[in-house]
């Protein structure tokens, strides 16, 4: 018992140390700002995303009903979390630490900012500063765009990044790009990060066994690794690169878990036969009871006749 107590104590101390250890965000990430202003509709979308991704540990903001984990996840409405700068919140959600998972591959940066907007809605003192338009770098003033094209041989996707300024279009070269496939529970990175070549192009090989929808279509999403420089530009599109997957209905055929009309034959037969046989014999017993009665009645009437005569 003493041993258990002391080891528990040690664990508490270690956990306490971990909490005490500041979660420092690199200086260049700290000042990062959302590229879009937090509107009511954004906050609403943020609630959805928060419920799906964060609530299971952090609970409902303001209620303090987060999970009893070590270290405690904390309530996002409290000062402890609200004193973070926007960039810090964004970084911590993206990277994760310890029990807190990293969301950078699960959620698009737009989605993470949307969650930040929801968290901020619990801070009445919060005033948002929006990221100024990106004008720096080699493509200042230009609109950056991504496009995706499937190779005719269907074994790779070509990504092209271009900067459009007025009528002139120039390729964005040497930029880190990523390609994701949208799955039910988040984004699945396709191959490694690539760098655009001098024509602004990068090629992502596509595995031949990616499951798609009924038509074999897959939703892919491309974006820049360095969003600070290029902004949250992304390109989502449907590509015909996956396997055609027909969803199999589990309630189509006869099965134990199905409704009674689709119960397996053997169980219907066993049950019905069992009931029929047993109750058939019960009926037989009741018929025998009837026979007993008939015999008694007959003897009674014979006796009565005898008495009369």
């Amino acid at each position, binding site marked *: 018992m003493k041993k258990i107590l002391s080891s528990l104590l040690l664990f508490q101390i270690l956990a306490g140390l971990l909490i005490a250890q500041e979660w420092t965000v690199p200086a260049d990430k700290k000042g990062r700002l959302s590229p879009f202003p937090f509107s009511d509709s954004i906050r609403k979308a943020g609630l959805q995303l928060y419920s799906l991704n964060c609530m299971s540990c952090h609970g409902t903001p303001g209620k303090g009903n987060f999970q009893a984990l070590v270290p405690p996840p904390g309530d996002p409405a409290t000062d402890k979390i609200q004193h973070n700068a926007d960039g810090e919140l964004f970084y911590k959600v993206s990277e994760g630490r310890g029990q807190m998972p990293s969301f950078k591959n699960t959620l698009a940066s737009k989605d993470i900012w949307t969650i930040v907007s929801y968290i901020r809605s619990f801070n009445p003192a919060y005033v948002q500063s929006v990221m100024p338009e990106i004008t720096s770098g080699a493509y200042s003033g230009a609109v950056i765009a991504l496009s995706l094209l499937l190779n005719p041989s269907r074994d790779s996707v070509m990504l092209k990044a271009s900067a459009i300024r007025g009528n002139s279009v120039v390729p964005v070269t040497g930029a880190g790009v990523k390609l994701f496939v949208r799955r039910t529970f988040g984004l699945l990175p396709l191959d490694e990060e690539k760098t655009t070549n001098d024509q602004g192009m990068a090629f992502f090989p596509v595995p031949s066994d990616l499951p798609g929808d009924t038509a074999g279509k897959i939703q892919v999403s491309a974006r820049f690794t360095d969003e600070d420089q290029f902004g949250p530009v992304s390109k989502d599109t449907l590509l015909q690169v996956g396997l055609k997957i027909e969803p199999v209905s589990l309630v189509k055929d006869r099965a134990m878990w199905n409704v009674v009309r689709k119960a397996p034959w053997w169980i219907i037969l066993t049950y019905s036969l069992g009931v029929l046989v047993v109750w058939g014999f019960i009926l037989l*017993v009741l018929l025998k009871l009837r026979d007993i009665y008939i015999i008694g009645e007959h003897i009674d009437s014979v006796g009565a006749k005898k008495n009369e005569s």
Partner: protein
Amino acid sequence: MNSQDQIPGLEQEKIDSLSADILRPVRINKSFLLWITFLFLALIICLYVYSIQLRKGLGVTGLRDITSWGMYIANFVFFVASSLVGMLISCVLGLIGFRWVTPIARIAEIVAVAFAAVAGLVIISDMGRPDRLPYVFLYGRVQSPILWDVTVVTTYFVLSLLLWFLPMIPDIAVARTRLQNRPSLLVKVYGILSFKWVHHPEQYKILNQAVKILIILIIPTALAIHTVTSWLFAVTPRAGWDSTIFGPYFVSGAFVSGTSALLIAMYFFRTNFRLQSYITDYHFERVARLLFLVSVVYLYFNLNEFLVPAYKMKKFDAFHIHELFAGHYAFAFWLVQLGGLVIPIFLLIFRFMRKPLPLLVISIFMFTASWLKRYLIVVPPQGHPYLPVQYVPQEWMVYKPTLIESTITLATFILVLIIITLLSKFFPVVPIVETAREESDQEAKSHEKH
């Protein structure tokens, strides 16, 4: 005396003396009225409590999300278990050819009928919306053990009732002619229920056939009733229920609770109905040996049920076993295992412990322990759900039966007592004709020897 009372092959005096003894308690006297009034008053109080549950729903019980099967289901399993004794005594032993069961077979059937009848009602007590009971039959899934259970419980009740009633028809005919001074309604009922029985050899032949069918039929049905009840638990992956031996484990446990119930009933009828010359020390000795046998078998299944998972200590099994062996339920668990099984088995080895009074005490212990055992089978495994449940108040995590729940459970026992009382006060509890036949057979045998 009516000429219909002539039973072929039996002396008139024997029937006279037997029926004088056995039919003597079949009457409405002061103590009976007092007892039955007490029972009905208690039942009315319990029914009032049930009306609270009916009005407010199952929230008045201790049942919550985590433990959704509590005292009611434990009680149901116990009732089904106790009803199994009818099949064991009158069918298995009777079919093998043990003649000594004759005087106690009907008591066993009365116990079986009473518990089987109320078992169905116990299930209804666990329903928040009992008005939806017909849905089980209207929309029941043939794949669900719940439908199988409803089917076999109903069938077993009907079979037990027939097996209590059919062999009694000759006795009712005897009572019809001898109890003319009883209330006219009762005499009328005897008239109807004797099915024009005139002790004709042909009637005996048909009756024996019918009883034989029932005896054979009830054995698989009785095994099915308790095996299916065990499947209600064993078909789930829950640690503590997920066991392949739950069927025989339940059946052997049922024989323990049923046999101890039978011993209690035997003691009561023997002393209160003054049937000492029919239910003798010999019968107690025999049933005690039977109790010993079924208890040892049950102990063996207990050993299996706990030793195998305790040896492996799989994560969730380990929680469950710890709770039982040393945790929250440890006191009840060891009380049941030692006080209700190991110590009684040890005591039953001694001859003087197989006398009626010590047996009564042992049986009361085993009977009570059997009830508690069902509680320990049903409730603790639910305390550790596989899926984590979040944000629920602490009182939802630990199941504690409420007073309302306990009162309604008490009501089911009162109902059992009412049924046993009515069946034993209006009908002979010891077979008259069969016992007479038994005795004259033995006399004939001893004559041959001399």
